């Protein structure tokens, strides 16, 4: 086991890692930027060291600053948290070159899973379904029609050179296809200088479901069930829960077993998450793998009683997992609410400033992970996550009822937060019936969503 770990992150996850390190009997050093001098993890740490200015490129994203900080404070391991340097295989490599341990997958594993496209091919080869698509590029209209018939309408035309959703077009019927291809090609030519197109199945009203896995260095791995992260705004998750209301117990088991089999075959190591889209019929399609601890990991911890951050550290230290699949028995239902400093009524604009009062909710099954306290000044430089409220109940209705109480108790004065969005969500019929899809919020926008909830 490690003796002393450098925490190369900030906010609530820095505190979460600090707690895990201490519970394992390790010392921890928090590396912080000038903007985070007054943050809670810095105050609670055994040691804290300033690594650079507020600009993340010169602090939390600076590999030399982090490694230098670890060396001068006598650490033997670095925990990167999520975001920042957490999935940077180059960083992991340099950490190892300085005889430090990177708490996460080894660099060659990060490298293997670095590209989305090759990861889909790799894991698809090990039995994970991926979104059905054309066999290579579309040659002409006849070929496109043939492929669309095989995949099934509606389909999505995508420029091969594209990215960020540019030049994509959804086609509902064979009649629309010819015109759509012409428009799509000219748009692609204009935007990317390349008019080659391919085709994917269009997934309407999809759900986002992910599977948590943990694999040790010796090839022994388990899954810890799934999480439903369908409640999003602009492709950013704001509520996560488990189990997913979208799938039957049998379908959930099948999804998780598929996931762990594929990553074991592909040689994954440490904790990780496989993300899937689930369509209306319950078919699931692999999208990507996250090679790190995730924001929403507490949902799984509440259900399984397993400390995922401690597990991550132990695996990185070379310990065997010490868990078998049959020992993991998820219990009840958990929901996580990301409490963000943002104004849902004004396009989710992020907020910064002084937290005048702060009160955490409590009671059975209520957990709050936060770096915020009354008098804390939220800096404008980083993400807007203030706290994670995780609520557990023996079943979904109880978890929802407890969540309402907890959100009412939670008090953040001085900043606008997204608590009203969460409260509106708990009054939303689609959410209450477990029918939420990834476009639930974006279809109407934050302000309209709030207004609709106020009317009911």
């Amino acid at each position: 086991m490690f003796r002393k770990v450098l925490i190369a992150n900030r906010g609530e996850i820095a505190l979460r890692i600090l707690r895990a390190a201490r519970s394992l009997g390790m010392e921890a050093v928090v590396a912080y930027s000038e903007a985070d001098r007054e943050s809670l993890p810095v105050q609670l740490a055994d040691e804290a060291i300033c690594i650079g200015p507020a600009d993340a490129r010169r602090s939390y994203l600076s590999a030399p600053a982090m490694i230098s900080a670890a060396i001068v404070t006598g650490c033997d391991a670095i925990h990167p948290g999520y975001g920042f340097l957490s999935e940077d295989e180059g960083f992991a490599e340099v950490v190892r070159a300085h005889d430090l341990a990177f708490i996460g997958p080894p660099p060659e594993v990060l490298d293997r899973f670095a590209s989305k496209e090759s990861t889909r091919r790799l894991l698809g080869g090990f039995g994970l379904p991926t979104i059905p698509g054309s066999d290579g590029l579309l040659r002409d209209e006849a070929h496109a029609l043939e492929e669309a018939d095989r995949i099934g309408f509606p389909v999505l035309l995508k420029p091969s050179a594209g990215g960020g959703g540019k030049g994509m077009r959804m086609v509902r019927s064979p009649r629309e296809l010819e015109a759509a291809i012409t428009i799509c090609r000219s748009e692609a030519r204009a935007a990317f200088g390349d008019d080659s197109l391919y085709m994917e199945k269009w997934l309407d009203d999809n759900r986002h479901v992910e599977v948590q896995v943990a694999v040790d260095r010796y090839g022994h791995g388990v899954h810890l069930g799934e999480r439903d992260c369908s409640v999003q705004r602009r492709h950013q998750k704001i509520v996560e829960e488990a189990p997913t209301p979208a799938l039957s117990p049998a379908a959930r088991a099948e999804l998780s077993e598929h996931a762990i089999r594929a990553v074991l075959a592909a040689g994954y190591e440490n904790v990780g998450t496989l993300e899937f889209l689930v369509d209306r019929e319950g078919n699931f399609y692999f999208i990507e793998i996250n090679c790190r601890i995730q924001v929403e990991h507490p949902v799984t911890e509440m259900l399984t009683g397993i400390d995922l951050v401690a597990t991550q550290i132990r695996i990185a230290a070379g310990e065997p997992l010490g868990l078998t699949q049959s020992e993991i028995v998820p219990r009840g239902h958990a929901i996580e609410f990301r409490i963000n400093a943002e104004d849902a009524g004004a396009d989710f604009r992020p907020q910064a400033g002084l937290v005048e009062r702060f009160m955490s909710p409590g009671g059975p099954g209520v957990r709050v992970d936060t770096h915020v306290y009354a008098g804390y000044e939220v800096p404008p430089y980083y993400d807007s996550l203030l706290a994670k409220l995780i609520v557990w109940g023996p079943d979904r209705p109880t978890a929802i009822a407890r969540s309402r109480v907890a959100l009412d108790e939670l008090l953040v004065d001085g900043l606008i937060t997204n608590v009203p969005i969460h409260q509106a969500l708990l009054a939303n019929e689609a959410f209450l019936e477990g029918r939420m899809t990834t476009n639930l919020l974006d279809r109407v926008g934050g302000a309209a969503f709030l207004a609709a909830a106020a009317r009911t």
Partner: protein
Amino acid sequence: MAGRTRRSTPPDSRSSDDRLVDHQAIDRLADELLPALMAKLGASGLGEVEVREGNWKVRLRRPDAGVEAAGAPRRRSGDRPSRAQPGHAGHGHAPAAVETHKSGRDGKAMSSGNGAHPEPREAPQPSSPGARRAVATSPAVGIFNGRSDLRPGAWVRAGDRLGAVDVLGVPQEVVAPVDGVLGVNLVESGDAVEYGQELVLIELAGVTSGGGHGTPAAEP
């Protein structure tokens, strides 16, 4: 220190005489006005100070007072960062944090002890009579190496190299923020230092001695 010297009128069609006058003005502003302004900015707790003289305007802003650091890159899921480059930290670090003696900014270096904030170190008091000082701070986290040929009492100019902080074998220069006389080193060579830590004291020029330097700008 984000100091800017700017001419109020456009610099078009100037004669060589004009240019000479300009250069002299810039030299004088840099030698006399800047050190005094730095001290004033440090003592005031203000974020920005501006002085006009003739056609010239000098504005000084504390490195942490601006908002230019907003919009640090956000990571989207699916994005992968570029490969980390070893051995590059603290490019273009503004070397001069003129002493601000606000407790929140006091160099809290690698504090030990369970959650306890260390007592704020007694900061040099720029406002006390005859003790106008600036401090050279660390541009990075690493190991400090002072220049062995510089002793307390030596005369240095703004920008002079006072030592370096070694970051994974790559030295990051520690430079004098102002003209002045070297005071004591606040850390020893070989010590581990953090970013922004106070390293070397400098008694400001033009304040403790007249020595051919003009008087500082009038007190407000």
